[in-house]
C-alpha cells in the first residue's frame, strides 16, 4: 500500500563513494534542502525542522550522536555507511547481508516499508507512508547525523 518511491531515484544518484557523499553533505548542509525533492516534490522543499518532529518516531531506539543506551544502532554518520556495518552493534543477518549503503534513496525506501526493503531485519517499525514526511526526515538526518569526526 505504500511502496511509495521504491525505484523512484536513479540508482546512481548521489552515489556511494566517499567523495560524492561529501559533495552531497555540502549541498544539504548549506541549504538544508534535499536536491532530491526536485524529482518528486516540485512545490515544497524538504523541511529540516519538520523532519526533526518526524524523527521523534525513531528517537526511542536511535541516537544521533552515538551516546546513551539505545536498542537500535546509532545514526551518527549513517549517511554513506554500509548497512549493518557498525562493529559494536549486533545486527540481524538480514541487515548484514543486505548490501545496502545508506543514502537518501535507500533510507527513503527503507523507512517507507522496512520489511519490504530488507526482509527479516529486526527494526520494529511499521514505516512512514507519507513521502513528504520521509523527505523531511531525510533532510533532518542529513544534518543531524553528520559525523564531524570521521574522515
Amino acid at each position, binding site marked *: 500500500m505504500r511502496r511509495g518511491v521504491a525505484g523512484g531515484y536513479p540508482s546512481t544518484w548521489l552515489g556511494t563513494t566517499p567523495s560524492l557523499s561529501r559533495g552531497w553533505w555540502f549541498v544539504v548542509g548549506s541549504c538544508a534542502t534535499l536536491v532530491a525533492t526536485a524529482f518528486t516534490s516540485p512545490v515544497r522543499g524538504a523541511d529540516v525542522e519538520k523532519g526533526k518532529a518526524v524523527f*521523534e*518516531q*525513531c*528517537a*526511542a*531506539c536511535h541516537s544521533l550522536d552515538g551516546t546513551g*543506551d539505545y*536498542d*537500535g544502532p546509532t545514526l551518527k554518520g549513517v549517511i554513506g555507511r554500509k548497512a549493518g556495518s557498525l562493529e559494536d552493534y*549486533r545486527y*540481524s543477518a538480514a541487515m548484514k547481508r543486505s548490501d545496502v549503503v545508506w543514502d537518501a534513496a535507500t533510507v527513503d525506501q527503507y523507512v517507507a516499508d522496512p520489511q519490504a526493503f530488507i526482509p*527479516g531485519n*529486526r527494526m*520494529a*517499525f*511499521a514505516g512512514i507512508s507519507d513521502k513528504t514526511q520521509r523527505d523531511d526526515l531525510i533532510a533532518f538526518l542529513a544534518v543531524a547525523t553528520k559525523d564531524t569526526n570521521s574522515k
Partner: protein
Amino acid sequence: MATRLREVDVVIVGLGWTGGILAKELSEAGMRIVALERGGMRATNPDFAIPLIRDELKYAVRNALMQNPARDTLTFRHSPSEPSLPMRQLGSFLPGEGLGGAGVHWNGVTWRWTGIDHAARTYYEQRHGKSFIPADMPIQDWPMTYAELEPYYDKFERTAGVSGKAGNIRGTKQPGGNFFEQSRDRDYPLPALESSYSQILFNDATAQMGYHPFPRPCANASRAYTNPDGSRLGACVYCGHCERFGCEANAKGSPHITVIPKAMAQPTFELRTHSWVTKVMLDSTKKKAIGVAYTDVSNGQEYEQPAAIVALCAYAINNVHLMLLSSIGTPYDATTQKGIVGKNYCYQPGGGGVTLFFEDKIFNPFMATGAFGIAIDDFHANDQFDRAAMGALGGATINVGQSNGRPIGYRPVPAGTPRWGAEWKKATAKWYLRAMNIGVTASNMPNRYNAYDLDPTYKNVFGQPLLRLTYNFLENDKKVIAYVGQKAAEIARSLNPTSMTGPGTLGDYNIVPYQSTHNTGGAIMGSSPGNSAVNKYLQSWDVPNVFVVGASAFPHNSAYNPTGPVGALAYWTADAIKKRYRQRPGLMT
C-alpha cells in the same frame, strides 16, 4: 552456611513494576538499595527483538517469560473439604519471572479504579442497604480515597505512556471519554490508539443503544513518547504479540525500559538477578525484620542480605507466600475466620463474552495490540446502574479488544463445528477473518473461604511448603456474569451477525485454561490491624519495616484490570517511605 552481606537501607524483593518504581524513587533519594530478582536479566535488544520474539509456540504456549512451576508453584482446591493438589503446569494465570516481571508480558490495560471500589463497603451499604451484602462476603473500604491516590495514578500513567481519552477532567465531563470516570486532573499523556473495525462496530452499536462507549486506557503507546523521567517509548505497531511477549518496539509501558534503567543509573542501587528470596528474617521480638535470606539459583549459594527496610514487590501471590513463610502477621483461618494473612483472595470471572461470525465482514484480527479496545462501563462504575435487578454486588465492563490473531491460539469457529479434521480446517480458514468477540470482564468480591494458606503436604524446591489456594466462583459472580452476559448478547444481536456463540454461564472455577493474571488479595490493606495485613502505606501492621506492595493489598477485585492501582500504590508507598518513614521509622498513621 549462608554468607552474611553488608547492610543496605532497602532490600527489594522482585523487580517488576512495583519493585522498579520503589527502586527508582528511593535510589534517587539517595537510599542504598539492593534489588533481588529471582529470574534473569532482560533487555528489549536482544531478548524481545524481531523476528525471534514472534514465536508463539515458545512464548504464548510454552510460557518462556513465566515462572517455572517445577521450582515453585501453588496447590489448589475448590473448598476446604477437598484435598489440594499442586498446579504442575501454568494455566489460569501466568506469574512472570525475570527483570520487569509481569510488567514485561502484560497487555497494558491501565484503569483507574473509581470511588465505588475505593470505598466498597460504604458505597454498597449506602446505595443498596446493609442486607444487600452477603454475610460471608468480607468486603471493606480501601484505607485511602480515590482523591488521595489521584496524583499517583497520574504519575503512573505518565511513566507507562498510557494512551486514552479522559472522560472527566476536574469535574467536567469530556466527550469521547469514559462518562463514569472519576474526576482526573488532566488527560492521558497519549491519545487513544486507532480502533479496529470490530471496535468501531461495537462503539456505534452501544452508542445507538444509549450506552457510553469509550477507548479503553492502555499502556500501548499510540505514538512515540518520552516520559517525564526521559525514558523513550516507541509507537505501537499493532503486531499482535503483546500479552505473554516482551515488546519489540518499546511501545508497551514496561519497567525494564522505564523505571528500572533509571534506578540502575544510580550509584546507590544494585541489582542481583537469579536471587530467590526464601524468607524475611525477623529479630527475636518478631516485630522487626533484619533482612532477607536468599539463594543464588545459578549456583545454590545461600546469602543473608540485612536491610533496614524490606519491600516485598514480588507477584501478588508470592508476596503472600513470603509473608506466611516468614511468620509476618497472623495467618488467616477460614474455619474460625481469625487471622488476616491469606484472606480475601480474589480473581476475575469471565465467561459472559460473545463471539460473533459474519459472512460479509472482514476483521483482520492479526492487526492487534494488547490493550486497545472500546469499552462500556454502564454495568460497573455507573452509580445509576440498578444492581437490585442483577441481584449482586460489583458488575462487569463490556469490551471489544483484539489482543491477537495468532495462528496457534486464535481459531474462532461457530458452535457445532467439529473439533478437528477436514470440516474444522474448512471452518477455521473461513472464519478466522470473519469473527469478532465482545468480552465481559467481571468484578470479584471476597468470600470467607476464598483464601491462601500454607499447604500441609507439598513443598517447593527449597523444601518450603507451597502456598495453597482455596477458591471457587460464588453466587454473586454467577449473577454478574449471567446479567451482564445478556447485555453483551443484546449488543451482539443488534449487529446482526450470521451466527454467534455465548454468552456462557459461570460454573466452578477451572484452574487449567488461561483466564487472566489478575490475582488479588491475601495481604490486604485496611484501616486497622483487625481488618488488614498492611496499613494505608502498605506497611505491615505487625512488622512495620516490611512493606508489601502490589495487588496483594486489594481487599476485593474490581471489574477493572489491576495494574493501574498497582502502579499508583507503588508510587504512593515510595513517597511515604521517602518523605515520612525515612525521617521517622516506625508505624505510620
